[in-house]
């Protein structure tokens, strides 16, 4: 079976498969695997990642195979001996496999394959599918353990570390344990670094190991599996686990839960699993395993490497030996490395008592993670934990647990499992959670090295502290309980770094409900049935089943969709599917498009829509037989049946007026009033356009773009240009009738660049000259857009307008504006009016634009108030962008402007788009945020949609969701490509549903939540006083956290602040949102800036909002090629007078130079030895021939390349005047405008939560 499956796997999409990289891994891995285990497994391993291979070789091979399955039930599988497991699991796995299979192409497929067989045997064909989901749900827990997924491994690392930390903490005393661990660390220390790198791989591998470990545990796993697979009986037990684990994972809090959960789960399922104990017993071994892990990493890196790894790995031998025992150890190690976690979780969970030792260790870790924040808590239980930890899991709880051996175990389990396990369980999700919880893998390592670390952690109270690089210094500081130690509170940097360290493998989208790595992490995505996180990110990957739960938790349910996101070069853009003349095949009732969730029945003659359950006939030309699993035989040949994202070719029925669209057009509308000419803007634009016109977007780089261009200049009147190829000279047509705009010419206005090149160049040469002496200062704006609109109408095509505008349009014309800048309104109830457009004219205009498919990009160059709130209406409603260059000066702003312009013109864009989000029964897309226009409540109309635009969609329940089917959403975007082709881009997303709040909290993504909340709030200021909006935000977050505390956290003193692991950064990020210029403007922030930011945020994706609200601050001390220095937190305290820092917000880029910076550094960067000689007006660094300078410039360039807008470099010297602006972005500090510091806000938040709880 497996084999068969494998084959199918391969066929699927040639590319996808390649993507999985199995080749490399597969071969090497397979070889070994094959030796050890049948090919079947190999595939899994392959997909799983290098790690698996490594593992397999080690002897886990069998497990490796399991791992894939493991995804679902690795832990379980692990227990079983590879061979044994194989068979034994086969059945059970069958369940899981389907799940995997469905979503994941390669990996899963492999997994599926393996599973596949089982499913067949065991479960009916269909069930698998459903099973998949179900399993997903169930599996989730199991899967988490399964780590096989990339995340799993990495997370494990982190988790481990976290756990470690936790362990340490809890085991504060454990320190000794620490030492115990220490050994490994010590040995590892060197390796530790490896861990860093390798760890991830190792983790992944580790998973396998884990799985291997499971081999022993198999029983346990089996149980687990059984549970999973055996829906009825097992599920419950599992669920508990899941729920528990998750919680535990999420928070250290888990300890309590773990206890609870574990008890039951462990008791029930685990009892059987005795094996774990063995593992635990093997714990020592685990350490060795760790070594293994390291070796694994190597493997990961290179399949071939495995051998080396082995070599290196004396471990190999151990591995061999380990297989059985090893696994368990690994599990513990897992705590260290990946395996640890998963296994640990399982193991722990399963064998709480038996495992005591490990648990202890784990618990400690878990505890440590708990926040040292303890400060507050300290009072109550664990002072330290109370605060910081409170967040993480109340160290307190852990503390307690640690004391109690047994308890500890549970806690441990929970802590590990829960805290980590859950994460692990979450597999992917877990990974993160662990990360967050545990500062950094590194710290963890140290911890691992010695349990001792844990103790330290406890002292620190803050897990973060541990993770944070600075942690080392911190401990002393942290100790002061009276003052909240900034280091003791959750650190974004720590979380980010943990996630990075954890993410070693490509993220596969096949598993439902798994959270992707953070936006700050570089990772590869393999589409296995759900849309890549680059397209869709959700706030929660476990949606509450009922509206009540959702309401209780207050966690927003939303997805941030970036339909045309650009993928990195190594990922395949969505395939284009052509269903022929009949158009895409859709459900008859809800019109959902064919997707992997559709169930084929009756031998493939019909399919049942998973969104609305309607059964639809399969058109004859689309018919295909089903295999024994109920899947279509050609499932992997068809992107729409196996991928999360793909495109359909739309037929003429999908075109406006049932006509094939004309190629789109770009129209450049340039302000040539006095200000624009004087600032040099006009000549810059004209000069640049000459070369830019060769880079109009096209789909096939070989072919010239079909986009036509047109030119208009304007001040009080409009000047159109006839640039027909046959003319010797361009002709200018002046339209002064701005009150009733029209297009004066048809032929010759929109032209093909190549044909009319000479005329166009002549025109662009002459425009600056023609207006060189202009004295016209008044401009119009409404008619300008009307002009472009009319031109597009006349040409009957969609298109984009590029408007370059300088001033408030006060000339007599429709859309004339008056200066209404009145700062006195700020803080009053009328403040909202400042965000609202002055005149309804632009709303109507926007509507017309959208109807025509006319997207407007606005470049503003104001020297004074221009009323962005009003001017922006059209761009925002048409899916356009606004760029603003206040006080534009050619010299200093040219670069930024031109880069923005280049990018804006060249970026891929779709026109005349309509987006619709369909969901499965039970939820409904209720609200949309972004740059678009809506005529009704369901269709998002975008005149233009480019690769940088994201749309946030909010979901609400309208019925109950089922845990079995999960929640599905399908986002379909109908658009005209830049080559004029009408297409449908489909993104499918499936998330789990949960009946336990803990699951929800364990699978959230704070960054996405912040994205949603900020957009929600920024829209709110249109209609509500700003203060009310701020209060609403605070309230909602307080409720979210209070709900967690009330329902998911272990009971503890009210004085403790307990934060869910996934949301521990919520307060700090939220504080950033609250302090943003929109919600809390400083005195120097203009109304235009606020309106600008407000509109800007509305279409940002998660990565952009993240860095916007929490800027990236890099210390430039030692720059190594290949890796960025670890960022520091955005606080002035973190800045060293002797250092140089780079701060990036996505819009701004600062280079901060400390007053007493080393001469050498200055020489390296600026080429000058003296601080005083630095020219703070420079916008680019001097090109110096030293590695440091080179690397620094590289970094800056890479930052710029990452962002959709070019960031001008501003050099800020310490204590310079400009530093004020810089300090504005140190968001953890108190802001000049009255925004609270992080610590203060956290206390405030705590207070709010306590109020809610009491």
């Amino acid at each position, binding site marked *: 079976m497996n084999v068969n499956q494998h084959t199918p796997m391969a066929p699927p999409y040639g590319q996808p498969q390649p993507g999985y990289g199995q080749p490399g891994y597969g071969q090497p891995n397979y070889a070994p695997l094959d030796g050890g285990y049948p090919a079947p497994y190999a595939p899994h391993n392959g997909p799983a990642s290098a790690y698996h291979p490594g593992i397999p070789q080690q002897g886990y091979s069998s497990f490796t195979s399991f791992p894939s399955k493991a995804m679902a039930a690795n832990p379980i599988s692990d227990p079983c001996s590879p061979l044994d497991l194989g068979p034994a699991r086969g059945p059970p796995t069958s369940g899981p496999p389907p799940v995997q299979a469905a979503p994941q192409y390669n990996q899963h497929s492999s997994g599926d394959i393996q599973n596949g067989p089982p499913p067949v045997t065991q479960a009916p064909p269909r069930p698998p599918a459903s099973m998949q989901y179900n399993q997903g749900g169930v599996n989730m827990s199991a899967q988490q353990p399964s780590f096989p997924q990339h995340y799993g491994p990495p997370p494990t690392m982190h988790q481990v570390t976290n756990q470690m930390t936790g362990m340490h903490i809890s085991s504060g005393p454990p320190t000794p344990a620490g030492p115990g661990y220490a050994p490994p660390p010590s040995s590892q220390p060197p390796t530790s670094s490896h861990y860093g790198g390798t760890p991830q791989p190792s983790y992944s591998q580790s998973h396998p190991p884990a799985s291997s470990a499971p081999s022993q545990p198999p029983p346990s796993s089996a149980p687990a599996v059984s549970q999973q697979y055996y829906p009825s009986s097992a599920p419950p037990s599992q669920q508990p686990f899941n729920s528990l684990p998750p919680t535990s994972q999420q928070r250290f809090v888990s300890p309590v839960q773990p206890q609870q959960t574990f008890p039951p789960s462990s008791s029930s399922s685990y009892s059987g699993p005795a094996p774990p104990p063995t593992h635990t017993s093997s714990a020592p071994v685990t350490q060795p395993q760790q070594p293994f892990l390291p070796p694994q990493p190597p493997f990961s890196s290179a399949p071939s490497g495995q051998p080396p790894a082995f070599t290196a790995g004396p471990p190999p031998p151990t591995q061999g030996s380990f297989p059985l025992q090893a696994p368990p150890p690994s599990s513990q190690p897992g705590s260290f490395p990946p395996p640890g976690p998963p296994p640990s979780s399982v193991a722990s969970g399963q064998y709480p008592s038996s495992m005591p030792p490990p648990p202890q260790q784990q618990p400690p870790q878990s505890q440590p993670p708990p926040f040292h924040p303890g400060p507050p808590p300290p009072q109550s239980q664990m002072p330290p934990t109370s605060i910081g930890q409170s967040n993480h899991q109340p160290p307190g709880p852990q503390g307690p647990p640690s004391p109690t051996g047994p308890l500890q175990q549970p806690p441990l389990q929970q802590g590990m499992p829960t805290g980590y396990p859950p994460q692990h369980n979450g597999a992917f999700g877990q990974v993160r959670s662990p990360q967050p919880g545990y500062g950094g893998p590194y710290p963890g390592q140290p911890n691992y090295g010695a349990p001792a670390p844990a103790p330290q952690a406890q002292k620190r109270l803050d897990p973060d502290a541990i993770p944070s690089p600075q942690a080392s210094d911190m401990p002393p500081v942290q100790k002061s309980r009276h003052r909240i130690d900034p280091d003791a509170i959750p650190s974004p940097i720590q979380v980010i770094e943990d996630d990075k360290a954890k993410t070693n493998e490509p993220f596969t989208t096949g598993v439902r409900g798994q959270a992707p790595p953070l936006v700050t992490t570089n990772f590869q995505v393999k589409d296995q049935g759900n849309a890549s996180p680059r397209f869709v990110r959700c706030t929660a990957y476990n949606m509450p089943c009922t509206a009540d739960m959702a309401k209780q938790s207050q966690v927003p349910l939303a997805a941030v969709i970036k339909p045309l996101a650009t993928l990195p070069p190594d990922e395949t853009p969505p395939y284009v599917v052509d269903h022929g003349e009949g158009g895409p095949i859709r459900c008859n009732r809800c019109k959902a498009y064919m997707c992997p969730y559709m169930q084929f029945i009756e031998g493939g003659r019909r399919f049942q829509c998973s969104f609305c359950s309607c059964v639809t006939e399969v058109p004859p030309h689309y018919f295909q037989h089903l295999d024994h699993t109920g899947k279509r035989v050609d499932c992997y040949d068809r992107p729409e049946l196996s991928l999360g994202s793909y495109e359909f070719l739309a037929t003429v029925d999908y075109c406006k007026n049932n006509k094939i669209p004309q190629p789109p057009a770009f129209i450049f509308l340039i302000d040539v009033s006095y200000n624009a000419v004087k600032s040099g803007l006009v000549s810059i634009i004209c000069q640049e356009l000459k070369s830019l016109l060769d880079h109009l977007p096209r789909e096939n780089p070989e072919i010239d773009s079909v986009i036509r261009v047109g030119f208009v200049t304007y001040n009080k009147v409009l000047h*159109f*240009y006839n640039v027909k190829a046959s003319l010797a000279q*361009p002709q200018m047509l*002046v339209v002064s*009738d701005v009150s009733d705009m029209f297009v*004066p010419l048809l032929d010759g206005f929109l032209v093909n660049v190549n044909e009319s090149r000479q005329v166009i160049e*002549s025109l662009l040469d002459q425009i600056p000259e*023609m207006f060189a002496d202009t004295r016209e200062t008044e401009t119009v704006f409404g008619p300008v857009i009307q002009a472009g609109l009319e031109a597009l109408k006349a040409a009957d095509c969609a298109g984009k307008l590029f408007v370059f505008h300088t001033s408030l349009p006060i000339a007599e014309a429709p859309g004339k504006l008056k200066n209404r800048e009145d700062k006195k309104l700020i803080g009053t109830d009328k403040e909202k009016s400042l965000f609202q457009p002055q005149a309804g004219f632009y709303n109507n205009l926007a509507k017309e634009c959208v109807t025509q498919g006319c997207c407007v990009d606005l470049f503003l160059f104001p020297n004074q108030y221009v009323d962005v709130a009003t001017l922006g209406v059209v761009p925002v409603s048409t899916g356009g962008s606004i760029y603003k260059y206040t006080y534009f000066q050619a010299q200093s702003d040219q670069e930024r402007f031109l880069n923005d312009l280049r990018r804006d013109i060249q970026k891929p864009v779709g026109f005349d788009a309509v987006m619709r989000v369909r969901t499965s029964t039970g939820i409904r897309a209720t609200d949309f945020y972004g740059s678009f226009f809506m005529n009704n409540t369901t269709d998002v109309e975008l005149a233009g949609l480019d690769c940088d635009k994201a749309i946030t969609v909010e979901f609400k329940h309208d019925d109950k969701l089922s845990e079995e089917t999960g929640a599905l959403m399908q986002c379909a975007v109908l658009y005209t490509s830049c080559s004029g082709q009408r297409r449908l881009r489909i993104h499918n997303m499936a998330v789990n549903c949960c009946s336990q709040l803990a699951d929800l909290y364990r699978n959230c993504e704070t960054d996405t939540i912040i994205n949603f909340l900020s957009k929600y709030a920024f829209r709110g200021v249109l209609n509500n006083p700003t203060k009310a909006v701020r209060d609403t935000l605070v309230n909602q977050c307080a409720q979210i956290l209070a709900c967690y505390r009330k329902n998911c956290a272990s009971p503890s003193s009210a004085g403790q602040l307990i934060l869910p692991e996934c949301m521990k950064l919520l307060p700090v990020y939220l504080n950033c949102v609250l302090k943003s210029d929109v919600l809390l403007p400083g005195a120097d922030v203009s109304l235009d800036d606020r309106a600008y930011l407000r509109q800007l945020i509305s279409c940002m994706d998660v990565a952009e909002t993240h860095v916007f609200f929490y800027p990236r601050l890099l210390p430039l001390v030692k720059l190594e090629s290949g890796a960025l220095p670890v960022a520091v937190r955005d606080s002035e305290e973190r800045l060293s007078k002797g250092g140089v820092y780079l701060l990036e917000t996505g819009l701004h880029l600062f280079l901060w130079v400390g007053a007493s910076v080393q001469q050498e550094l200055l020489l390296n960067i600026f080429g000058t030895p003296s601080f005083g000689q630095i020219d703070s007006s420079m916008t680019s660094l001097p090109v110096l021939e030293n590695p440091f300078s080179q690397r620094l410039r590289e970094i800056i360039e890479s930052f710029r390349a990452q962002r959709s807008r070019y960031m001008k470099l501003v050099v800020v010297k310490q204590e310079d005047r400009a530093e004020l602006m810089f300090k504005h972005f140190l968001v953890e500090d108190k802001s000049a405008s009255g925004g609270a510091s992080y610590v203060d806000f956290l206390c405030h938040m705590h207070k709010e939560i306590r109020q809610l709880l009491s």
Partner: protein
Amino acid sequence: MSTYQEFIQQNEDRDGVRFSWNLWPSSRLEATRLVVPVSCLFTPLKERPDLPPVQYEPVLCSRANCKAVLNPLCQVDFRAKVWACNFCFQRNPFPPSYAGISEVNQPAELMPQFSTIEYIVQRGPQTPLIFLYVVDTCLEEEDLQALKGSLQMSLSLLPPNALVGLITFGRMVQVHELSCEGIAKSYVFRGTKDLTSKQIQEMLGLMKPAATGPQGRPVAPQDAVASCRFLQPVHRVDMNLTDLLGELQRDPWPVPQGKRPLRSTGVALSVAVGLLEGTFPNTGARVMLFVGGPPTQGPGMVVGDELKTPIRSWHDIQKDNARHLKKATKFYEALANRSAANGHCIDIYACALDQTGLLEMKCLSNLTGGHIVMGDSFNTSLFTQTFQGVFSKDFNGDFRMAFGGVLEIKTSRELKVCGAIGPCVSLNSKAPCVSENEMGIGGTNQWKMCSLTPSSTLGIYLEVVNQHNAPIPQGGRGAIQFVTQYQHSNTQKRIRVTTITRNWADAQSQIQHIESSFDQEAAAVLMARLGVFRAESEEGPDVLRWLDRQLIRLCQKFGQYNKEDPTSFRLSESLSLYPQFMFHLRRSPFLQVFNNSPDESSYYRHHFTRQDLTQSLIMIQPILYSYSFHGPPEPVLLDSSSILPDRILLMDTFFQLVIYHGETIAQWQKAGYQEMPEYQNFKQLLKAPQDDANDILETRFPMPRYINTEHGGSQARFLLSKVNPSQTHNNLYAWGQVRIVHPWGRGFMGSLDSEIF
């Protein structure tokens, strides 16, 4: 009456005046009984090569409501250096510059032979002539090319300092800026929107914020700056404009099947008028509109763009079925009045096979003195030569055109002015000499003629107001003074003053004298103008009835006949031709609309009301010359009997020039006799009518349709339609009409005296 003939001819040559009566009945009652009113045809700018203008200002009567110009009829007291106005009898001192005046040293204006005198006055800045081309681009490619060629050619005919501007239109209206280098720049207006003059000027950037006073026109320099973008001296933009015209493309907007191109003639004219209004008010300017079809959108729309809806016909108009007629006419009238008020004239050059809306637009030219030219295509010599004719020059090398003419009439107290008919508009000047009885454009003694040519002729209608019981002393004379101020084509401001006088005669005692002083040609034309003027506003039959009644009354008054015996009817020689003129007038296209399109009627009437007497007579009664070996060419009856095989006929209807070879002649010509040396005389015979025709063609404006045909030729219908009373013709193009044999008129034909021709 050779004496009267000579007198009339002499007066016409000297003063450009022909009176219907050269002796005036002395009382209102008598005058009324004469049927034909005391009236005259006045050609204000009659070419007078023998009249050098004087370089000083005219001397005016000091009475405020008189202001008559010093003339030979005034009593002068050389010693006291005063003169008595012959109109109001005010005694006026001579100005200081006349200090040296004496009986032997008289200024020219006092000499009898200078009853017409022209003054050159220095008033205001001299502004160059302005030509604004308004060009339709919805033409066939051929037409457009030809038109472009003509326009480019015309540039070379313009004086170098003349200002020239270009507006093109189709669906949109483009005002081309001529001053810019490199990029051709134009302002575009939507063709569907009626804009006020102020809006247009704002949109063209002609109104500087500072200069928007209540009625304040921007100061001249600023104006010059602003305007110079659109109106540039020919010598400066010659090349530019030639290129611009060369690049002129057909209107690019697609014309769907079954539709007419969208042509925004109304807005284009509105913009042209607004542009000139804003830049050069009260300065001589010529808007030349070239259209190839009817306005189909926006204000002034004459017909919709659906081809299935034909343009209005007389039939539609009579049935009140012409949707756009009233609105469009109103629009163009308003435009014409604005333009006239500013002294700008509008020419219409309409070349299309179908109608172009002249009916609605005619007022533009009629009120402003502009030309109307109608042709089939711009690609014909008819158009090109006519267009060149616009720029023809006189013996001094000046254009035969003048601008901004204001004609003022002063009369001695026995007379009052009833009105004028011609290319003019009333200035509503309420002087004492204005009669309450209006004929033509009345209620004023001043008229404005935005453009004048030497042949522009007004019909002036007067009224004798002297009461019957207040006899005029024997030998008393009435006097009329015509004061014409205008801008000469060399940009000088000039004033031409014509003072004429006629004797009063007692109608009861001197009826014979009065009868013999009748100028039947002038009277025919004057009556015809009245008829045409009425026809513009009344139903055709009513006008005809009125004409008939007038004729009958006249005949009753002067005819000698025996009752019940038609054959005994006799008219004196001075009236003998009059009935014949009336007969031809009745069936002329000026009064008959049958078989003429509304546009054609408008076109003919337009020309009829402005040409001088000779041309008008030709229009009323085409002339027919017969060429034969039997002698010199002779005028023959306009009758089918004149068509003989061995004759060549030359017919001139003003609008057409037909050479018709008789059957034999045609055969000879086919046989090629004219090529043989021995038949040189035949060749000369063939050539003679052509030479004569060429003479006519050279002087005629607008260029007539020249037709060279022969017996049996298809084009012979042009001749046959005029001469053969018993035949009905189909005439696709022009104004063929069904002849009605008029039993009553035929009687008069017998008395035709061919000598008159």
